[in-house]
């Protein structure tokens, strides 16, 4: 949907208009001494905004710059990128969560761009976590990201979002289309980890992924699916909207140790 491409413009316009509203009400108010009504409420609103901004900035800088400048490692396959970023997070990551990613050196205005990306995977190391994203080239931010040859400075904010609990289900069917697979991979990992810890009722998990041949990204994404244990991947090809679509079905049958 086209409007979705301008979501950041809308979000920024909303904030600019809100700030303009505070200024306009300040001019509109009869008395402008700080303790008078309604100036005192405008001051409280402005201070709340400022404190929130400072707290958020401190949190982002602490999480990202604690062990030095975090550099993103970018791996490209077709029109899809696998971006890995080391962060000093202490809190755990749950499936279904996303983070906001910023690469300040990408362009002159990229410090203002914080798009959301689903976490596709993570690995613990001695300094925190290295998180992986699967990103498809679409426009502006993602196109600029594909043109980078070096390891750019990358800041992440998050993780945000809630997990859908799957522990009480015996059979789980996961569906994904295109790059949407990125959001499902952590669920597969969680089910397998829970099974190893004997904390889930799940015995069978089937992941159905529809991929478009135009993007030529199966070599990058399929290893992410097949790295799980006890898997069996079968593929079916079909013609849809004049394009070849490959349907990959990964079945994860969990057996007793």
């Amino acid at each position, binding site marked *: 949907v086209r409007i*979705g491409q301008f979501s950041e413009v809308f979000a920024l316009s909303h904030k600019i208009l809100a700030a303009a509203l505070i200024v306009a009400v300040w001019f509109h108010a009869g008395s402008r001494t700080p303790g008078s009504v309604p100036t005192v409420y405008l001051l409280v*609103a402005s201070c709340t905004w400022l404190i*929130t901004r400072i707290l958020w900035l401190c949190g982002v800088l602490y999480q990202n710059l604690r062990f030095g400048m975090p550099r993103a490692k970018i791996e490209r396959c077709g029109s899809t990128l696998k971006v890995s970023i080391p962060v000093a997070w202490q809190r755990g990551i749950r499936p279904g969560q996303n983070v906001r990613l910023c690469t300040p050196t990408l362009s002159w205005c990229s410090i203002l761009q914080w798009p959301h990306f689903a976490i596709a995977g993570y690995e613990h190391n001695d300094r925190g976590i290295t998180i992986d994203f699967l990103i498809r080239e679409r426009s502006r931010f993602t196109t600029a990201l594909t043109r980078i040859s070096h390891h750019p400075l990358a800041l992440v904010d998050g993780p945000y979002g809630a997990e859908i609990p799957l522990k009480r289900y015996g059979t789980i069917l996961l569906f994904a289309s295109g790059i949407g697979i990125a959001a499902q991979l952590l669920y597969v990992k969680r089910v397998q980890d829970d099974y190893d810890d004997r904390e889930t009722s799940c015995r069978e998990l089937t992941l159905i992924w529809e991929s478009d041949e135009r993007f030529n990204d199966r070599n990058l994404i399929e290893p992410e699916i097949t790295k799980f244990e006890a898997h069996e991947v079968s593929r079916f090809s079909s013609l849809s909207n004049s394009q070849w679509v490959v349907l990959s079905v990964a079945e994860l049958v969990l057996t007793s140790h």
Partner: protein
Amino acid sequence: MLSTQAYALLLGYTVGLALVLLIGIKCMQYVSKTARSLAKTYENTFRGFPLPRLQEGLPILIFLAANLFFLINGTLEGIVLRSGRLSAINLTLLSFGYHMSFLSYLSGLNMSHYRSIHYWGAGTMTSEVLAHTTAAVVQRTSTGSEVAMWAVCPSSLEKGSLLIDYRDSQAFRS
């Protein structure tokens, strides 16, 4: 005589009570069905402003009732002042929506509850700004005073901000 009267009373009360219960259940079913249908129509019409869930409903109702109580309690001149002040007070509530995901993480509040509070706060504030503008125009027209056109500026900005937010929420839904 007494036993037949007792029987008549017992029968009357039993049948009456059963009828009241049955009609009550039927009415409840009808009310619930109508409410669901109204909620569905509302959500289809105003997609950017979702209806609050049950656990969000009570605080929002209290919030709306408090705003309404302080707004309508007085004369037209009072309404002009109070609606302006109430909208400025509600602006402080809205200022907590700057980094919603960050603040919802810090506070431990569910993100959808947090978003709902922000939307309903914004809706209430818009209504109060509208009431403030209308009451001021009516009051000044009736007393023959001049209506300053630049005073419409905050009201327009507020509506613009709300509209942008509505468009924005549509964008995130798609």
